[in-house]
């Protein structure tokens, strides 16, 4: 028997060797193998053969001989023109498929562009300052317990100057706060111009690179406030004039006299994509406060500038170690340094920071958009491969006529890029016209967009091209890979076995749609819960006047107010819903767990406050004029702070149910240490903060006509307009020069949950789109299946099959896939949503019916889409499909 080398090596050698050399070379190899085998035995011969095969790896042996019947290069000008010609003809001929493709791709690309804009814009915040990497905001971290800490964007005013003194790394510091003001250009103007005002000390010019256009950045030693105005703001208030040296007045809220501001400098516009968004900067002289380790200190938002290349982790550690030694408080208060670039997206904790966004929302946003694009591309791949059978004959003929595979792939890729090109055109068009509505939805402008930034546009085009290539390559590969002999004979069922992949993709697609749909329902439920939860007080028919200084006229104003028809009750209050949790906070020892501290909130107002809010009395009594419940806090405080403190200890108070429970207060009308007062009654729990916060123990104190206070007004239902008009008239009599801000409490409460509301709208939109795209994809597949099985359906009908039976036959496969998707997606969605809900102290439960509703909805959409086409196929005249051959 003739000895033979190992088969795999032989096959490898055949692969390596160019076809025209195979005869002689492989013959030589085999002959030598036989010689070796006889001489040294099989093992050595095999080893030698391996070396022989390796030695074949040289260009002269591997290089293939060009075919004598060459087809033109796949990239020649003629061929390229031909691809376009044939491609556009194919697309026009199958116009319904092209339409499905176009719709899906346009929507996917549009959504992707839109979201990419939002994401890129969000990430661009605060990146344009020249020292952006070295600026930090000081964040105070209060350790409440071992694993519980509260972060706060403000820090002791004395800290930053102290840091500069102690550490060489600190180059400069500045306090910086933002707020809204109304300015009158001329004193006699009626209305003010709304202005976003930043307040900073002079060292801000060392930290931020402000570009001075005219005037000076320095603080002049005058009584007046100094104001730096931006160019566009100056153009708005003094069009065409030099603003330097002018004086404008603000409309006071607390004081009675308008304050004069002198414009001392004109600067270039501050970047819009910065959390320090502003029209003007009020400059103050830096007044470093000494840092004390005991007693009262003022807090502010402080920024520091560190030397380039400072290790921030090391610096933070050093500062905190020093601070622990300085305060001797065992590190209950610690500091973090938040990089400037993180402030916009990572400031969930920062109350009162007007310009911020949540990184979580950005992630969700981006994720959903990517999924949408994925669905669109899946549609494309599925439909293209499903349609492959219509193209394989063409591919076969082309191959027989010496068309190369490269040419076929190029042809199909050209079709893909034509479709993508048109879709990109539509998407860009839609993008351009939907930018404005999206900006309205977001509530701020988008600075970096694809239509304004050439770099981004280039990047986007490159991404589109890559997506088109990736999406088009697989179908092109499949279609061009058939053997011409088989396709022309009509055998392609075996090689068309890629249905497995197609099914997987459909399942993935529907899973995504179902997850998004579930998320929509749950987000809506959560939003609904937060909007409609009983807060413990009556939030309807409650309006408020924002906090002002009353100049001793509060009591009189209140008396006049009571006469306005519609007003039921009113109260001067030092707290109102949505404005923090109270006016004062104390830390007391937790009686239940030693070593832990509890935070207790205090709310103060006049004696009518509990009744105006509509709190429910559970035990004891409410405040009343008949008792000496109210403390004359303002005058006492002015006289002697110590005396005021002791008076407060003896003051009567109301406490909430949870305060009584958590502090273990059983007895009323007795001075209690933990309460710092004498509780006289227990009221039902109420949410003094938003529902993002768990309920905390709260006390209510009464004060006589507090001077710094807002006014809560309980009105009769449906009299809001009437009362507001009355209040305005009254205001003109009492405080003609002051700004009046009236709000509806319910509206303000709802505004707190804007993030959830936005998220809900977003999900509603995206779930509609994903569902639509998935249905579109499945529709295309059904059309394809119906066409492919037209003969089968015809024969079945001739043999007496019913319409229902045929519809079932065609629909069955798809419904099965969607059922699998439901089963796969539900637990995934449940898990993800449960994780999301854990962020909320008050959360909705995910009911089983949510899954049922979603499943039924998905099935209904599928069956609706599928049966539309299936019924058409089933009712078609069988003669038509059977006649042509």
């Amino acid at each position, binding site marked *: 028997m*003739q000895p033979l080398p190992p088969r795999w090596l032989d096959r490898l050698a055949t692969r390596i060797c160019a076809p025209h*050399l195979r*005869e*002689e*070379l*492989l*013959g*030589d*190899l*085999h*002959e*030598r193998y*036989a*010689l070796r085998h006889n001489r040294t035995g099989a093992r050595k011969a095999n080893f*030698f053969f391996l*070396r*022989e095969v390796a*030695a*074949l790896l*040289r260009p*002269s*042996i591997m290089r293939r001989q060009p075919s004598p019947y060459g087809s033109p290069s796949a990239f020649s000008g003629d061929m390229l023109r031909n691809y376009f010609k044939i491609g556009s003809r194919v697309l026009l001929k199958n116009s319904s498929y092209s339409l499905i493709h176009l719709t899906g791709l346009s929507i996917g690309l549009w959504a992707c562009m839109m979201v990419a804009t939002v994401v890129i814009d969000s990430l661009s915040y605060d990146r344009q300052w020249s020292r952006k990497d070295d600026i930090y905001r000081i964040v105070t971290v209060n350790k409440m317990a071992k694993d519980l800490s509260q972060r706060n964007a403000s820090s002791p005013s004395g800290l930053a100057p102290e840091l500069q003194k102690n550490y060489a790394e600190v180059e400069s510091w500045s306090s910086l706060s933002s707020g809204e003001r109304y300015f009158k250009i001329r004193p006699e103007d009626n209305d003010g111009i709304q202005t976003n005002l930043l307040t900073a000390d002079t060292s801000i010019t060392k930290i931020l690179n402000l570009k001075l256009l005219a005037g000076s950045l320095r603080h002049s030693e005058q009584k007046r406030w100094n104001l730096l105005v931006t160019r566009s703001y100056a153009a708005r208030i003094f069009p065409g004039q030099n603003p330097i040296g002018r004086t404008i007045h603000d409309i006071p809220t607390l004081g009675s006299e308008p304050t004069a501001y002198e414009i001392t400098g004109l600067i270039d516009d501050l970047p819009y994509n910065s959390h320090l968004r502003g029209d003007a900067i009020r400059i103050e002289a830096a007044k470093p406060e000494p840092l004390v380790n005991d007693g009262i200190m003022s807090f502010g938002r402080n920024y520091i500038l560190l030397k380039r290349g400072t290790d921030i982790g090391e610096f933070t550690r050093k500062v905190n170690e020093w601070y622990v030694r300085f305060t001797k408080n065992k590190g209950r208060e610690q500091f973090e340094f938040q990089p400037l670039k993180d402030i916009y997206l990572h400031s969930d904790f920062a109350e009162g920071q007007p310009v911020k966004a949540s990184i979580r929302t950005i992630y969700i946003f981006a994720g959903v958009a990517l999924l949408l694009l994925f669905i669109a591309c899946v549609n494309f791949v599925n439909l293209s491969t499903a349609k492959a059978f219509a193209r394989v004959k063409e591919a076969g003929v082309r191959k027989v006529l010496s068309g190369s595979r490269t040419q076929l792939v190029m042809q199909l890729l050209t079709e893909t890029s034509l479709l993508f090109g048109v879709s990109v055109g539509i998407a860009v068009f839609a993008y351009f016209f939907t930018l404005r509505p999206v900006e309205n939805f977001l509530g701020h402008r988008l600075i970096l967009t694809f239509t304004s930034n050439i770099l981004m546009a280039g990047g986007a085009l490159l991404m589109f091209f890559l997506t088109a290539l990736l999406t088009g390559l697989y179908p092109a590969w499949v279609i061009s890979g058939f053997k011409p002999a088989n396709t022309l004979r009509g055998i392609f069922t075996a090689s068309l076995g890629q249905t497995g992949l197609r099914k997987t993709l459909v399942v993935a697609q529907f899973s995504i749609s179902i997850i998004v749909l579930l998320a929509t329902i749950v987000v809506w439920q959560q939003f609904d819960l937060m909007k409609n939860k009983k807060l413990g007080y009556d939030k309807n028919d409650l309006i408020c006047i924002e906090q002002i200084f009353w100049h001793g006229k509060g009591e009189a104003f209140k008396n006049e107010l009571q006469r306005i028809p519609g007003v039921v009750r009113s109260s001067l209050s030092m707290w109102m819903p949505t404005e923090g949790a109270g006016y004062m906070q104390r830390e007391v020892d937790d009686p239940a767990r030693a070593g832990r501290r509890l935070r207790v909130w205090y709310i103060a107002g006049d004696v009518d406050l509990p009744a105006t809010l509509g709190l429910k009395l559970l035990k004891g009594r409410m405040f009343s004029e008949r008792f000496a419940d109210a403390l004359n806090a303002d005058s006492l405080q002015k006289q002697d702070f110590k005396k005021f403190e002791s008076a407060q200890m003896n003051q009567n108070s109301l406490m909430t149910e949870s305060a009584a429970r958590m502090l273990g207060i059983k007895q009323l009308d007795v001075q209690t240490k933990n309460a710092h007062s004498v509780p006289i009654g227990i009221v039902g729990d109420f949410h003094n903060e938003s529902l993002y916060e768990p309920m905390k123990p709260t006390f209510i104190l009464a004060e006589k006509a507090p001077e710094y206070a807002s006014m809560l007004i309980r009105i009769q239902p449906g009299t809001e307009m009437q009362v507001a008009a009355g209040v305005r008239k009254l205001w003109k009599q009492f405080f003609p020069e002051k700004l009046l801000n009236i709000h509806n409490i319910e509206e303000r409460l709802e505004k707190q949950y804007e993030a959830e509301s936005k998220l809900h709208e977003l999900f509603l939109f995206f779930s509609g789109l994903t569902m639509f795209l998935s249905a579109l994809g499945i529709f295309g597949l059904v059309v394809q299946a119906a066409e492919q099985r037209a003969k089968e359906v015809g024969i079945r009908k001739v043999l007496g099959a019913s319409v229902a039976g045929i519809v079932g036959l065609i629909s069955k496969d798809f419904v099965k896939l969607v059922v699998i998707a439901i089963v796969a997606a539900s637990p995934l969605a449940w898990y993800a949503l449960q994780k999301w809900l854990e962020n909320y102290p008050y959360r909705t439960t995910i009911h089983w019916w949510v899954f049922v509703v979603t499943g039924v909805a998905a099935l209904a959409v599928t069956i609706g889409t599928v049966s539309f086409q299936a019924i058409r196929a089933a009712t078609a005249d069988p003669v038509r499909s059977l006649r042509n051959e």
Partner: protein
Amino acid sequence: MRRSDLGEFEEIVLLAVAALTPGAYSVSIAEELEHETGQTVSTGAVHAALQRLEQKGYLSSHLGEATQERGGRRKRLFTVTAYGGKVLHEARTVRNSLWNRITPAELSKMGLDFSNS
């Protein structure tokens, strides 16, 4: 004379073809070289050298008969062309003239002795 386009291995292969004619093909050449030098010589290397020599015009080839151990494939037989013979001859002349200029007395002075080789 252009010696530069005839490498050492090529020269040996060319010589082997001349020596083995009319039965000179890759296997016989590789086996012969292995036998002469005592080192393994791969068929691919020999084949590549033969291809180059044929391209340069030193060799001509034709397909021979098929045998069973070749799996029914034919072999390519090589013969030296007149031009190839001339090149070989020239190479030999150069070597001989150089060898002739070396006197045994000089060699032994330098401590070298090739007399036995």
